[in-house]
């Protein structure tokens, strides 16, 4: 009773300000409720999936690789190694540079552009530049350091050694110094690997030449080991550049290979070229097409050169293309190269359960004849493999 009276007491009535505040809060609350009611409504949802989508490890595409290894049996008396001089060490095929200066110079170097035959966009786990060199004069010392570039843009990616601290030196004219420099820091993807230039700066204590035995790249991608070979070399040891393309790597470059000997006017099983390739097709790849480019011509005016071919894995004959009785093709004249493209369907996955192995060990023999018993010239020998990896 006391409480009720107390509530009724004028002393406990709300003040005008409190009333206004309460009114405002109430109005705001009312407005909020109104909006909520207007927006709310029933809703429902259904779900689908999850759906996992995964792309191929390597998309389908044609990867082309030239023949860097060439054995010339045109004489019919055994094979003569006519491979790229930078292909391998210890093969007695070397490049002797021009004369260097006894001090490093920014304008004195040799450089190599490598073939870009690996599928793009693949991570590279290891990449090594292999370089073998020796001084050309006994008692002198040759030293080098290297720079790594993107060939297409001439962008410097990194360097190993310097003019003050050479990467390696050789004080022998008979024993080659082999440098195996990791360049994995610069080469993390096949996009870079396929567009690589290595520049080797040099100096020679007696201002003389040096000998180069080896210049390759090797390593591994996520799916295959690889070795890559130079297709363009530039010798700027003297300060003036001399460019040399590997004869079989590029067509139409006015650089071609002339057989070591003359051919007979009839085919002979002992007269041939043998080409090997290094396509580095990954294990498990599906090979959908294989072609061979073989561009050739006679060297005698008005002469006719003909050829037929055989594909081998070791000593196992995989396929033949033409024959001694029915050549694969003939080309008359000594000015225009043929542009033969031979389909090697026998080496696809659809037709060959061991297609990857056979391609990675492929050797192609081209038997030739020349109507006037002269030599022939070869402009391009290239293997084109279309494959993908799931």
């Amino acid at each position, binding site marked *: 009773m006391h409480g009720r009276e107390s509530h009724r007491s004028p002393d406990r*009535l709300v003040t005008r300000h409190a009333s206004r505040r309460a009114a405002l809060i109430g109005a705001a609350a009312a407005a909020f409720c109104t909006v909520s009611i207007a927006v709310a409504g*029933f809703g429902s949802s*259904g779900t689908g999936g999850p759906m*996992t989508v995964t792309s191929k490890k390597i998309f389908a595409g044609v990867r082309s690789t030239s023949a860097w290894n060439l054995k010339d049996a045109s004489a019919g008396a055994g094979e003569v190694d006519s491979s790229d001089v930078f292909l391998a060490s210890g093969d007695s095929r070397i490049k002797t540079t021009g004369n260097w200066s006894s001090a490093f110079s920014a304008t004195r170097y040799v450089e190599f552009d490598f073939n870009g035959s690996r599928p793009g*966009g693949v991570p590279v786990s290891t990449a090594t530049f292999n370089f073998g060199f020796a001084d050309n004069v006994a008692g002198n010392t040759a030293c080098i350091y290297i720079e790594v570039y993107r060939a297409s843009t001439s962008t410097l990616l990194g360097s190993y050694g310097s003019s003050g601290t050479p990467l390696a030196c050789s004080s022998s004219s008979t024993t080659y110094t082999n440098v195996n420099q990791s360049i994995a820091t610069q080469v993390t993807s096949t996009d870079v690997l396929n567009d690589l230039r290595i520049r080797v700066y040099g100096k020679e204590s007696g201002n003389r030449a040096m000998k180069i035995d080896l210049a390759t790249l090797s390593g591994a991608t996520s799916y295959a080991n690889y070795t890559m070979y130079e297709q363009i070399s530039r010798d700027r040891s003297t300060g003036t550049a001399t460019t040399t393309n590997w004869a079989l790597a590029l067509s139409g470059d006015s650089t071609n290979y002339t057989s070591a000997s003359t051919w007979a006017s009839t085919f002979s099983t002992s007269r041939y070229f043998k080409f090997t390739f290094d396509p580095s097709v990954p294990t498990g790849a599906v090979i959908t097409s294989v072609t061979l480019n073989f561009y050739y011509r006679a060297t005698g005016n008005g002469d006719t050169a003909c050829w037929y071919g055989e594909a081998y894995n070791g000593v196992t004959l995989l396929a033949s293309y033409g024959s001694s009785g029915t050549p694969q093709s003939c080309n008359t004249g000594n000015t225009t190269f043929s542009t033969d493209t031979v389909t090697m369907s026998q080496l696809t996955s659809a037709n060959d359960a061991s297609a990857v192995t056979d391609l990675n060990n492929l050797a192609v023999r081209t038997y030739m004849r020349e109507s006037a018993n002269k030599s022939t010239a070869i402009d391009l020998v290239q293997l084109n493999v279309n494959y993908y990896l799931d």
Partner: protein
Amino acid sequence: MRRASFRARKILLSLAALGAAASIAGLGTFATFTSSTSTSNTIASGTLSLTAPFSRLGTGASPIAPGDTMQRALDLSYSGTISFASATLTTSASPSSLLDTDALNGLQIAIDKCSQAWTEAGPPYTYTCGGSTSTVLASRALVGSGIALSNLTLTAGSTDHLRVTLTFPSGADNSFQNKSSTVSYTFSGSQRAGADQ
């Protein structure tokens, strides 16, 4: 102080008077009827339900290459008692990759509808429509939120027969190799507008 007390007393007296008058008026009204009848009016809310009783969206695809397409059928049922006003699609990817983050060359989605159930072949699944088709969603980047869908029936008790097509654009380059995305789909609907009942 005394004035305030007097004013409060006046207000209370006024309220008391009003209450007494209202009570009397009410009593008078009841006094008018001598019998009464009553009716009961049951009001119950309806249900809104969007389900996918048939769905191939859980079927993944691997390995895909640029130019590939993936077709998956899906029935969208409006199994409640209230029709829908609209429906949207929200897609998300986890794990995510370039396949779903690249709006241009990543996966694209399109949805069309068949007036009857799609005829399925495969796997890999492909579908043909024996009736008429209409576009529910024109081709666009796969991942998105609240993507408006068109030409759906949305009527309570009905079902839309949908075909979801994912396309891996031919323009995708080697950077899309060896990628993986797991995509979830959520179809959401909201009720029709309120109406007199």
